[in-house]
């Protein structure tokens, strides 16, 4: 199940118990799953529609295609003080909201952003709609929690933890594509989400030789890599790290428990830029990331072509193990975000001859 869908189910379940919670979307209600099922829209009487019945005291907000105004309005709602607002759009359009998000953080407002379609995983809509640097850019805003759950259960705990946060804004980064709902009978319970990062799968057959850290839809890649490494006899731990800020807020002993200082072989995997991950993976670590813009194609193709795979994570893990032993150079830039190959989209390069260009004059 896509985490955006799980989020919609959580909201619908919360509707009767949290009357103070209300929100909506900037014209993407169906895509963002921001409508609490059956709740009336907040709209003057003459302006309700067939799709969205409602009235002036309704609950579902319709901001239209106006993300910046949505962000500022959410701040105003929060400043009024009696209700909890949330607003949704595609994660890419957090860019259109950024000044408002920063002001929410500055004013310590408990606004919730429901940002879906959170990576190249959105697929065919292509690079104009695919976040790449956004998670890093949002994490750079002081006082904003950026939460990227891995599956439906993590999404539920994420919402719970966010709603318990009453003195600053939080952002959910949710998938468009389906992700597996992890089997908690063999993996750790999703409650660990509240601590920002937790050991999802413990190393077997000895102390962990390597720790794989994933967020959101890439946690499954870390688990896939772990299967390969364990099969080769490499005890491998997987850490799910949905929220860096919550993890940072834990005390040192918990953080050391999750990321033992003695284990210097570490790999992070996230479908976005590497920026910010070096501090968690350390000198010997490897970062599986995406250092260029995306492309228009189905998401499986994109993950494969851009080297965001379980294989890539396993390969990086082996490199990191060697580096930690001092047998390989430590701390290269990022490990595996491969240079785009010739037929790959790199809009960043386009001006100098877009590698994927069909435009002859640009070659």
């Amino acid at each position, binding site marked *: 199940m896509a985490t955006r869908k799980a989020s919609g189910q959580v909201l619908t379940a919360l509707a009767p118990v949290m009357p103070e919670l209300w929100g909506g979307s900037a014209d993407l209600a169906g895509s963002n799953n921001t409508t609490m099922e059956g709740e009336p*829209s907040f709209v003057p009487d003459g302006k309700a529609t067939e799709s969205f019945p409602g009235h002036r005291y309704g609950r579902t907000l319709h901001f239209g295609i106006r993300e910046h105004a949505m962000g500022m309005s959410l701040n105003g709602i929060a400043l009024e003080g009696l209700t909890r607002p949330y607003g949704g759009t595609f994660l890419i359009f957090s860019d259109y909201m950024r000044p408002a998000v920063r002001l929410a953080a500055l004013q310590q407002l408990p606004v919730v952003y429901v940002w879906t379609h959170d990576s190249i995983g959105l697929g065919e809509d292509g690079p104009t709609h695919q976040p790449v640097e956004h998670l890093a850019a949002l994490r750079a805003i002081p006082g904003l929690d950026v939460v990227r759950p891995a599956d439906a259960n993590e999404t539920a705990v994420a919402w719970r933890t966010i709603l318990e946060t009453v003195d600053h804004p939080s952002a959910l980064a949710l998938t468009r594509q389906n992700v597996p709902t992890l089997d908690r009978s063999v993996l750790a319970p999703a409650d660990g989400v509240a601590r920002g990062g937790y050991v999802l799968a413990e190393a077997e057959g000895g102390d962990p030789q390597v720790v794989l850290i994933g967020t959101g839809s890439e946690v499954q890649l870390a688990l896939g890599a772990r299967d390969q490494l364990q099969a080769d006899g490499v005890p491998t731990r997987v850490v799910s790290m949905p929220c860096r800020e919550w993890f940072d807020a834990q005390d040192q002993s918990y953080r050391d428990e999750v990321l033992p200082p003695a284990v210097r072989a570490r790999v992070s995997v996230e479908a976005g830029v590497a920026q910010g991950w070096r501090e968690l993976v350390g000198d010997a670590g490897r970062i599986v990331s995406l250092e260029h813009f995306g492309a228009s194609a189905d998401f499986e193709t994109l993950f494969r072509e851009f080297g965001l795979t379980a294989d890539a994570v396993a390969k990086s893990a082996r490199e990191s193990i060697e580096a930690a032993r001092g047998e390989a150079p430590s701390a290269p830039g990022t490990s595996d975000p491969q240079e785009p190959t010739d037929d790959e989209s790199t809009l960043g390069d386009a001006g100098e001859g877009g590698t994927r*260009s069909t435009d002859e004059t640009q070659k």
Partner: protein
Amino acid sequence: MSQTAPTLTAGRDESLTRPIADEVGWTDADVRAVDTVRVLAADAVQHAGHGHPGTAMSLAPLAYLLYQDVMVHDPSDPHWLGRDRFVLSAGHSSLTQYIQLYLSGYGMELDDIKALRTWGSATPGHPEVHHTTGVEITTGPLGSGLASAVGMAMAQRRQRGLLDPDAAPGESPFDHHVWVVASDGDLMEGVSSEASSLAGHQELSNLTVVYDQNFISIEDDTDISFSEDVAKRYEAYGWHVETVDWRGRAGDSGDAARADDGTGPYTEDVDALHAALQASRERTDRPTLVILRTVIAWPAPTARDTAPRTGPRSARTRSRPPRSCWASTRRPPSPSRTRSSSTPAPWSGGARRRTPGGRSATWRGARPTPRAPVCWTGCRPRSCPRAWTRPCPPSRPTRRAWRPARRPARC
């Protein structure tokens, strides 16, 4: 109207009003071509299993009119400096542009359209500049295209002033026009308001925005979030505003079936649109907004006037056109049958260079202003002339400013 090939529209559904395009001189071949555009748009999305077909269908006459009868451009020389610029601010309707690039001979082929939204194709989900020949700007984030077009219009004026200020109006190779196709979302976004305000202030008469007012966005009927009088807003910005209403009894809002105010069936008055566009080109004192009222996905029976949802199911059930182009036995004449890729389509006004081939050469020889050659050789290849450093003497460091403080500052 000259009926060059009367059989070309023989199979057209008689319940569909024929576009009114007498003054602009459309023949059966043009009507057929526009119908083919609609079918191609629907089929491309059907084939891909996702995408937005509806707007490309209803805007087929507009897009065809722009590329064939209005814009000054040369598909055989897509980077010709004198070309008009086309900005599809409603980038989600990328097919609106891709299909015109196909019809007017930009090298886009049917297979490219079949490859819509797939890895490595020339037809990504949203148009991408430097990627697809003929695409001037990357769009998709709503509002961005319209707002950037304001910059294009400003640049046109500045460039003309630098390179050819003495030419009579319309006579310079640098007299081009900027054409924008925008949607409800573009007009809702704040950035378009800011940019349009600036454009009005700057009296950018070389800018025409066609606003496709179809009263539909992703959350269906725009009544839920958008109800201001856009025409009055743009008038207040200092724009010339004209409304061309094709909706007939669909009226101001709501779906085509609901309202019946007796104003008649949906009618694509291409002549009225053409007149508005041509007048906007002639205007010299202000930018123009043409509000074109359409019904999205016209004339697909089940999709028209419904929200442009994506996804295979919606593409199949909601946007199925009356007939299919490459999947059906009743195949309309494919443009490739009537044109070879090296020559423009017979109905193509494609190569409409207002300034004949030699004009810019003439300009180069006869009109260099003192500043022009520097700009020409310096700016155009995006490099600096060798001498650029000369006027920039090195500055001496301000010693005090960066000397380390002796004591930690106190406050």
